């Protein structure tokens, strides 16, 4: 286990339980991935709040090559055309820069990502604390390096916290790929391309609640158990990093 508090940049990885990485049939032998990580080791996470000064709250996240900015605006008055609502609305939108992907302008599935982002966050926000108004969450993927959606979700919940939107807990998200018989956590683009299945979990550690879970590919039940356990553990550690990022920001004297 490589994560020890105090090292920079901080990494997080789920505790490898009794199960050692099985004989991998994947890329290299002896359980090392193309970028030198172990199967159950996440990429180094760099998080920073206050990336955009014009926004109510914002955050920047960099997980390996995946770089994301999220800005949060509001709560502001809902559009006139919308019906009266005694709970607040959450509006999420995910977009890719044209240069985010290898082939220009191929950032895919924005619409789906936006709806998953919405579903992952709405359970964490106290929507009744801002009736009749809308909070906008805009995510921009500057570089897509794999596991984009979980990075967007974690970064968005940090940005919401930075904006002072009331939440039950921070939402941490981690994804996992199933490649052949082995599970690899926090996959990079190359691994995602060859994956047989993927599992993404978003989790609020303090309340122990899964806000969103998306699985595709072919999974046996024990494998889902194992994958979920790995993701839960990684989410808990990621949430710790997110929390310390917020604390740092609050402690440091504001530069003006």
């Amino acid at each position, binding site marked *: 286990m490589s994560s020890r508090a105090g090292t920079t940049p901080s990494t997080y990885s789920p505790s490898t339980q009794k199960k050692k990485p099985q004989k991998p049939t994947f890329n290299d032998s002896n359980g090392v991935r193309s970028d030198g990580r172990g199967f159950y080791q996440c990429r180094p996470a760099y998080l920073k709040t206050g990336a955009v000064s014009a926004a109510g709250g914002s955050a920047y996240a960099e997980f390996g090559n995946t770089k994301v900015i999220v800005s949060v605006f509001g709560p502001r008055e809902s559009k006139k055309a919308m019906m009266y609502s005694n709970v607040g609305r959450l509006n999420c939108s995910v977009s890719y820069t044209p240069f985010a992907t290898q082939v220009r302008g191929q950032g895919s599935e924005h619409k*789906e990502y936006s*709806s998953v982002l919405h579903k992952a966050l709405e359970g964490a926000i106290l929507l009744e604390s801002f009736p009749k108004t809308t909070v906008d969450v805009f995510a921009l993927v500057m570089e897509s390096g794999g596991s984009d959606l979980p990075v967007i979700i974690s970064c968005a919940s940090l940005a919401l916290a930075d904006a002072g939107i009331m939440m039950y807990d921070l939402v941490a998200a981690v994804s996992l790929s199933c490649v052949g018989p082995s599970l690899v956590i926090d996959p990079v683009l190359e691994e995602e*391309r060859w994956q047989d299945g993927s599992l993404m979990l978003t989790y609020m550690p303090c309340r122990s609640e899964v806000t969103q879970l998306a699985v595709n*590919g*072919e999974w046996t*039940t024990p494998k889902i158990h194992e994958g979920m356990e790995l993701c839960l553990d990684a989410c808990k550690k990621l949430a710790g990093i997110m929390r310390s990022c917020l604390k740092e920001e609050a402690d440091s004297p504001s530069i003006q």
Partner: protein
Amino acid sequence: MVGLSVGETNFIRGGIAQDLRCDGRKRLSYRPIHIDTGVIPQANGSARVRIGGTDVIASVKAELGRPNSAQPGKGKVSIHIDCSATAAPIFQGKGGEALSTELAADLQRCLLGGKSGAGAGIDLSSLSIVEGKVCWDLYLDGLVVSSDGNMLDALGAAIKAALSNTGLPKVNVIAADATSSGDQPEVDVSDEEFLQFDTSAVPVIVTLTKVGKHYIVDATEEEESQMSSAMSISINRKGLICGLTKRGGAGVDPSIVLDMISVAKNVSENFINVLDSEIAAAEAREEE
């Protein structure tokens, strides 16, 4: 949107807690399912599925196309769902669009498997005709005619039935030699011989709706309005999980997620059998 009074809400919730729902069902039993196949003559395959008040139509259209350069040996499948405004006024304009894209994305996740094709209900390599040159493009279109809850399961069942109703015309390659490299090979589409589609791997989707502490299958619209969250799990005949997606804002405890998966697995065995016999009955009726 369903407007329910406090009394009605309590009645629904209380019924679910006591394992007796408003229409007399138990928590884990389905409404009667009725399937018709071959309802759209223009399509290669089609089916209409009615589960209680929910009524959906799925059609399969096959066209010859060029395979993706990244996957030369595979055909293409796309799923499109239309929530018609005739079903409910809230589907008008943008309201239907959001739901349609969400349903289509969920179906894609549940039926088409992972990137490498593992767990896919449709074997994409069986759609290839000439590698890198010609393949079948399958267009799966779903239409919600009337909605009374549980749309995803109904659409999944309709697509399964429509696929088993699908006959792809036999294609003879006339001139597929290396001399004309780069050109499209000439093909002859037979209008007499049809190849049946293997649908044994197509999973079924089971949605468990969580109301209070309990979960129910095949929720009606009234029951769905009371849900805290819902989990749609697609399971194939082998009992493998091919896709999973969660709806509803409220979070659930990880142990409940695992419990829901095992409940869905039990329910699915029965559901697959019911669907298969209904599909077989519908096919038999059509032939008469």
